[in-house]
């Protein structure tokens, strides 16, 4: 069932632009995809190592700015800029990981928040580089072998490829001894140390991969909206990622993607259905209900149901 379901899902994702008639729907799908990459990235830290990064928008923003600046001012190709965005965001992840060497729980959260605050201030105040609050307009659309990926359909496939890559990275890591070391850190850190798991090393590794992936999402976002401003560092982006991961099921591979789709589509659907005040209320109520009835997230709940059926 899982394997067949996976193929069916892949087929649906690959043919989605054929089913979606309007550009608006495709836009929602692209945003869901970009957030899918971000949620996968956050889940690597929050779901597997158990450390909550509340500054994840910083890595996203670093990716967006790196990619935008290199293509705008450095005239780099999109692909090279994308790679640099991943690398620089990953380096920022390394820094945060090293800074919070021995810090866990609330202290780790504080380091990540502070880091995001500092980076955000830099983006606003380093006007010569970032153009300050005015932002950077005219970020070029990506090209592939001379073809512009300007169209929404083309961009959709680019994002889909990024999701597939991110998912593959997460899946391979999680199912290896490296993933077990991540989880050991979440489950029982002293015990992990006692059997030779160098916990700090693995926390830094998870932070680097997670931040790099968020940088990938940032680059995709910059070249899609074609505009980058300090708004990319907004706390709401981080909160949205956390909601997606927690609602979908942290510590599962599919959970963040389910969460990303749900919490990108839902606000859009609500926008069509109700006035602004009711949208926020409905969003809030749904979130509370989810946390109340599916505290471990949607994917674990479905897995539990299936397990019960099987037995």
């Amino acid at each position, binding site marked *: 069932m899982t394997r067949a379901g996976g193929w069916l899902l892949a087929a649906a994702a690959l043919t989605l632009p054929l089913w979606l008639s309007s550009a608006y729907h495709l836009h929602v799908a692209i945003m869901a995809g970009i957030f899918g990459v971000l949620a996968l990235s956050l889940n690597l830290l929050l779901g597997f190592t158990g450390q909550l990064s509340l500054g994840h928008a910083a890595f996203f923003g670093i990716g967006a700015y790196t990619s935008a600046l290199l293509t705008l001012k450095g005239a780099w190709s999109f692909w090279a800029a994308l790679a640099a965005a991943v690398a620089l965001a990953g380096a920022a992840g390394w820094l945060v990981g090293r800074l919070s060497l021995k810090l866990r729980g609330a202290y780790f959260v504080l380091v990540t928040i502070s880091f995001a605050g500092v980076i955000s201030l830099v983006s606003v105040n380093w006007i010569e580089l970032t153009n300050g609050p005015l932002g950077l307009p005219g970020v070029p659309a990506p090209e592939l072998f001379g073809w512009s990926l300007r169209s929404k359909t083309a961009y959709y496939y680019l994002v889909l490829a990024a999701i597939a890559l991110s998912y593959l*990275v997460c899946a*391979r*890591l999680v199912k*290896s*001894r*490296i993933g*077990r*070391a991540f*989880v*050991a850190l979440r*489950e*029982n850190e*002293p*015990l*992990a*140390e*006692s*059997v*030779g*798991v*160098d*916990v700090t090393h693995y926390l830094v*590794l998870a932070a680097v991969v997670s931040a790099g992936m968020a940088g990938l999402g940032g680059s995709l976002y910059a070249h899609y909206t074609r505009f980058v401003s300090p708004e990319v560092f907004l706390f709401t982006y981080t909160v949205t990622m956390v909601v997606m991961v927690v609602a979908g099921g942290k510590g599962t591979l599919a959970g963040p993607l389910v969460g990303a789709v749900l919490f990108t589509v839902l606000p859009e659907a609500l926008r069509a259905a109700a006035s602004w005040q009711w949208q926020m209320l409905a969003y809030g109520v749904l979130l509370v209900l989810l946390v109340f009835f599916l505290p471990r997230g949607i994917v674990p709940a479905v897995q539990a149901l299936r397990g019960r059926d099987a037995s």
Partner: protein
Amino acid sequence: MTLAVRDLAVRFGGVTALEAVTFDVRPGSITSVIGPNGAGKTTAFNVITGYLRPAGGRITYEGVPLTGLRPSAIARRGIVRTFQRTSVFPALSVEDNVLTGLHLRGTAGFLEVLAGRRRLAAEESGLVMDAAAILEFVGLAHRRREMARALPYGEQRLVELAIALAARPRVLLLDEPGAGMTGAEKAVVSGLIRKIREQGVTVLLVEHDMRMVMGISDTVIALNGGRVIAEGAPAAIQAHPDVIRAYLGAPRGPA
């Protein structure tokens, strides 16, 4: 080949937890550390395994100093411990608990994992077989798929032992392996400890159950108030006046 502890001192604020503690753990032996509550037994364990920095003194294994190393680095040198309070990976299956313990036996690096090298699949299945053998050894093969936290207390302690064994210890430090267990469970644990020693592993244990200690130990070290008050064969320790005084208090002297 010895684990050597020399002049170990630990202080918590003004309180002396260990003072001038010196002992050797002979390779291949079962050595027990006993003493009343607060004697410094677990503190000694924490220092040996790198969870606590001593204020003074040295610990060497095979002549190589361990003092100042991180717990994971000490584990890499073959010195592995268990904890006084049950310590497992609660939300993982029993098998995954042991697989995590096998961390050092795996070799897969980051890039190799990302590349999905075929060699890794073989390594993984080898690790799963190792885990199965260890679970067989401690008698938990039938619990393989269950979540660790769902197991009864006694079996969780066995999971803990299995995790430690997975790390392939040369010296195994067991902190009260029999605590809270029934007599029958303790007998099982004693049997396992003997078997572990037969495989060439040196065992150092902290234990309160005197029957268990006297039954399996080659050497007993008695601590009191952070100092070694006696060291020797079980029978000698049982008869040692200082040890008796430490446990029962000083006999009332002439008024």
